[in-house]
């Protein structure tokens, strides 16, 4: 057998064994990974939705597309928290495309009355020590959103004449978040009927 063929065959065998092992690992971890992601979503939802819901908000969802929620035209999932047939609130992720570095993903929950219940940051790439003061483990800044609605607050940072604090050395990050939450809130108020529409009985999640 010529050398190049032998080498090719040996490499092929190494590749095949590796592929077989990886395929096994993948199928063994697929379930746990999906479960871990579900638990993460659920934990996030529990932390933002008003307490006391008795449905499963991670499957009681509706997906809507709107350019105000993100700029990519991707559907945004609205997780509904209900107790019996009463709507307690809906949680959804809005994307602020105009942060200091990269997108800021924000999960917010809104009460049926159109009042912000809570705002959390899902993911961000802001500068450590400056822009990341938005995170709840650094400051209480996100609490400023609690209880705000379209009318009882000026939805700008203080520098722009609004009600929300900026940080020394970091205005862009809070400004981006304030505006993104406002866009999310506007969308929610406008589309409330659709957002809280019950899931069609025969439709599987």
């Amino acid at each position, binding site marked *: 057998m010529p050398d190049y063929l032998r080498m090719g065959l040996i490499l092929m065998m*190494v590749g095949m064994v*590796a592929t077989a092992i990886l395929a096994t690992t*993948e199928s063994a*971890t697929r379930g746990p*990974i999906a479960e*871990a992601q579900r638990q993460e979503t659920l934990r996030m939802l529990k932390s933002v939705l008003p307490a006391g819901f008795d449905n499963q908000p991670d499957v009681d969802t509706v997906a809507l597309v709107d350019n105000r929620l993100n700029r990519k035209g991707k559907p945004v999932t609205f997780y509904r928290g209900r107790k019996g047939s009463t709507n307690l609130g809906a949680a959804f992720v809005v994307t602020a495309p105009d942060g200091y570095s990269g997108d800021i993903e924000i999960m917010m929950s809104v009460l049926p009355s159109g009042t912000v219940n809570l705002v959390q940051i899902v993911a961000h790439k802001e500068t450590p020590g400056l822009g990341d003061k938005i995170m709840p483990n650094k400051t209480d800044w996100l609490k400023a959103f609690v209880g705000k609605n379209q009318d009882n607050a000026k939805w700008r940072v203080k520098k722009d004449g609004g009600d929300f604090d900026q940080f020394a050395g970091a205005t862009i990050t809070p400004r981006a978040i304030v505006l993104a939450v406002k866009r999310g809130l506007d969308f929610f108020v406008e589309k409330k009927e659709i957002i809280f529409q019950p899931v069609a009985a025969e439709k599987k999640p």
Partner: protein
Amino acid sequence: MSETSTRQVIVDGFWNNNSIFVQLLGMCPTLAVTTSVENGIGMGLATTFVLLGSNTVIAMIRNLIPSDVRIPAYIIVIAAFVTIIDLSMNAYVHDLHKVLGIFIPLIVVNCVILGRAEAFASKNTVIASAIDGIFTGLGFTLALIILGGVREVLGAGTFLGISVMGSAFQPSLVFVLPPGAFIALGFILVGVRWINQKRDAGT
């Protein structure tokens, strides 16, 4: 080479030839993820696992692989182990996996691992290679923990997330940012050299 004593392999891998402090290999994950001790530990242990696995398997197949194609074969073995740990971490330590993110798949191109495969595992027995893998990995982990510790304490005033510097301490932001990684690593290297010089002068 294969007569090297086990003790020598351990001491070399862990300290004398420490992949960070002495060989200065694998700088990308070292500098990028060490913003906290926790990240350092996670990255270090993931790398240790890959090193153990790749060194063991490569030592096992070293006589079957023609030397002309050994590098692609090693890369396949390493990539397989990295993917295994990537999937397992995603499934079982999901939060840490989210923090380390892109740096887990990038273990594939950490030259410490290919370096050990080429320099040690391809010439030594399975047992010796496994020991070398573990202790090179632990040496790497030690370096990441020290670097992560310095950066976390100076840059955030915490150690493993627990505040240690008191409320009067103003964290120095630069240490969490990329330049701080270089500055801290520089001073740590000075320290390691100094310790080694002292030791060598003493014997």
